[in-house]
């Protein structure tokens, strides 16, 4: 039941509904098996944009990619962006997305000034930090359960141009990572690291650290071409396996060029967006994402334990990202980012063995007092969810009775 007009009521359907943006969540937070999805991409109009203040108001189906196309030439950037620009504003709110600047800018929800929520009883409720604040906090990171966000208004970030000044540093172990991270936070807007989770023994904990700032316009680099590169078909088995992983990681670590470079924002923030249908490399069974955060005091030990568990299983992750989150008050009741260190991983789906590994990672995360990111999850148990998000009961009064998702039914069992 696609939506096209912001003045239109929700369609009348039997059973539950869920707004569906661009389908970039990895798990079932954007699915509603047995119910109805309401695709929102038809709601992609701007309502207002002030080029002086950088405040933009647009319909909730607008893509981050579309906002960048409009805003960057006018000297503005997204305040916070995840690793793909193909997410909608509504999805960014519902998952309270974060990026490489969490230590400085927090989550996307912190930059949302107001939005309109359309409830199944037909009510249109304008929410902001001061107006209907409970519903505001429940909708940010609310996984789409509080109703449908029709439009939102948020603050953009001033930039001088599309370029970033990036510094690349290799590190040999986790202690070096943490040192680099804390040293970089003060002077760099963006920090993130790739970690070799197939490495063992002397190489354990090695990786590559990237830190960057928006660069002045004089620092012109090479403008990327929008490639049509795409994975043309799904191979019969995953191309990511133990062998290719070791080879890739070895190569990636060795070829990482230390030093400074001027890079365009597209390859910097969205490397995977350049390869269409990249998920196909994992074969017909697909892959599972796992992203967890562990608190500061437990970070060093827990991250090491997570990496050891992965290396021991022989199921390394091609993409392994490490980032230190700052200690900031969460924008939403179910916001995932919190003080500590986050680790994000992709595992080819090898069935029971993969799920067993993820259960093991859950044990480590839970024991450390951490949490797993619902937007990337397809399998955490209800008990784990309620442990990771102890304020979940505050959601219950705010949820729209007509709205539900596969994820929510799973973790409420």
């Amino acid at each position: 039941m696609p939506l096209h007009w912001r003045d239109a009521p929700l369609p009348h359907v039997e059973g539950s509904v869920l707004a569906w943006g661009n389908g970039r969540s990895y798990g079932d937070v954007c699915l509603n098996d047995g119910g109805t999805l309401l695709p929102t991409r038809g709601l992609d109009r701007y309502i207002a944009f002030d080029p002086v203040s950088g405040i933009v108001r647009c319909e909730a189906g607008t893509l981050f990619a579309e906002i960048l196309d409009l805003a960057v030439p006018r000297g503005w950037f997204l305040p916070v962006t995840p690793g793909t620009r193909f997410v909608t504003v509504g999805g960014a709110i519902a998952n309270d997305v974060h990026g490489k600047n969490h230590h400085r800018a927090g989550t996307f929800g912190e930059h949302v000034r107001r939005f309109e929520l359309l409830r199944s009883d037909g009510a249109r409720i304008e929410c902001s930090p001061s107006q209907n604040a409970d519903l505001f906090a429940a909708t940010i990171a609310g996984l789409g359960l509080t109703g449908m966000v029709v439009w939102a208004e948020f603050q953009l970030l001033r930039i001088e141009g599309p370029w970033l000044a990036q510094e690349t540093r290799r590190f040999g172990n986790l202690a070096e990572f943490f040192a680099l991270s804390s040293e970089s936070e003060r002077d760099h807007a963006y920090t993130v690291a790739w970690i070799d989770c197939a490495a063992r023994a002397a190489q354990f904990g090695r990786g590559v650290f990237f830190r960057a700032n928006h660069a002045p316009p004089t620092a012109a680099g090479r403008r990327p071409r929008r490639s049509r590169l795409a994975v043309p078909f799904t191979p019969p088995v995953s191309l990511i396996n133990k062998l290719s992983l070791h080879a890739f990681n070895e190569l990636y670590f060795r070829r990482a060029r230390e030093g400074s470079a001027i890079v365009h924002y597209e390859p910097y923030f969205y490397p995977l967006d350049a390869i269409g249908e990249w998920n196909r490399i994992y074969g017909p069974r697909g892959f599972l994402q796992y992203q967890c955060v562990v608190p500061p005091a437990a970070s060093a030990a827990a991250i090491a334990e997570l990496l050891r568990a992965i290396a021991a299983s022989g199921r390394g992750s091609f993409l392994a990202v490490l980032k230190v989150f700052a200690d900031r008050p969460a924008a939403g009741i179910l916001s995932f980012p919190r003080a500590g260190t986050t680790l994000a991983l992709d595992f080819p789906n090898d069935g029971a063995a993969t799920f067993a590994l993820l259960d093991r990672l859950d044990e480590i995360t839970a024991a450390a007092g951490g949490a797993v990111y619902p937007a990337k999850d397809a399998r955490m148990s209800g008990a784990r969810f309620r442990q990771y998000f102890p304020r979940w009961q505050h959601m219950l009064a705010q949820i729209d009775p007509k709205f539900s998702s596969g994820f929510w039914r799973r973790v409420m069992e």
Partner: protein
Amino acid sequence: MRKVLIIGATSAIAEATARIFATRGDALFLVARNADRLQAIKADLDVRGAVRTATATLDVADFAAHRAIIDHAERELGGLDTVLIAHGTLSDQGECEKSAAALRREFDINALSTMALLTSLANLFEARKAGTLAVISSVAGDRGRQSNYVYGAAKAAVSAFLSGLRQRLAKANVDVLTIEPGFVDTPMTAGIANKGALWAKPDAVAAGIVHAIDKRRSIVYLPWFWSLIMLVIRHIPEPIFKKLKL
């Protein structure tokens, strides 16, 4: 900079086309029935970079109101050089088979209102010896098929009208563009399930429309492969065509 009048501006193809004009910094006058939706589109086009936008409501079946709308557009934009006529309804073929009144209503909207608007606009542009008239017809007008021949007949009338108008206005340096979209995934076709590989997005069709206007084309099939499909369909002999389920 173009000064563009769009009739049926709330249709998905028209809105997507208007966005391209707006991004280029053109001026737009938007006409449709629903004032709130016109306002929503106007605000969007303003943000995207339109140098000027204005709107007016019109029911195209009210032929007497056509002339005033064109004058209004000219006043608002300080002239007019490009017109896109995009309004239309996807006729209920079953109802049109039962009721001549339904048939006539479909013709009023999909054929006669378009021709009436073009009659005024053609005289205006002919006298100025400049301008572009772009009109959305349909591949359905290339050959009547049992599944939608009332809609097809109305579009066939429009296409034939445009063909003649193009010949007449060529001498006056006025471009007449016949736009023949195939299947496009829009709210108008939302009722059709199982949209396969032949279905296009409004954005892609809109890009083709603007390109054809800029290149001063006469007839454009969008996406292009519909010209091949319709070439085949037009040449199927009647004895065989009669037995097909199209």
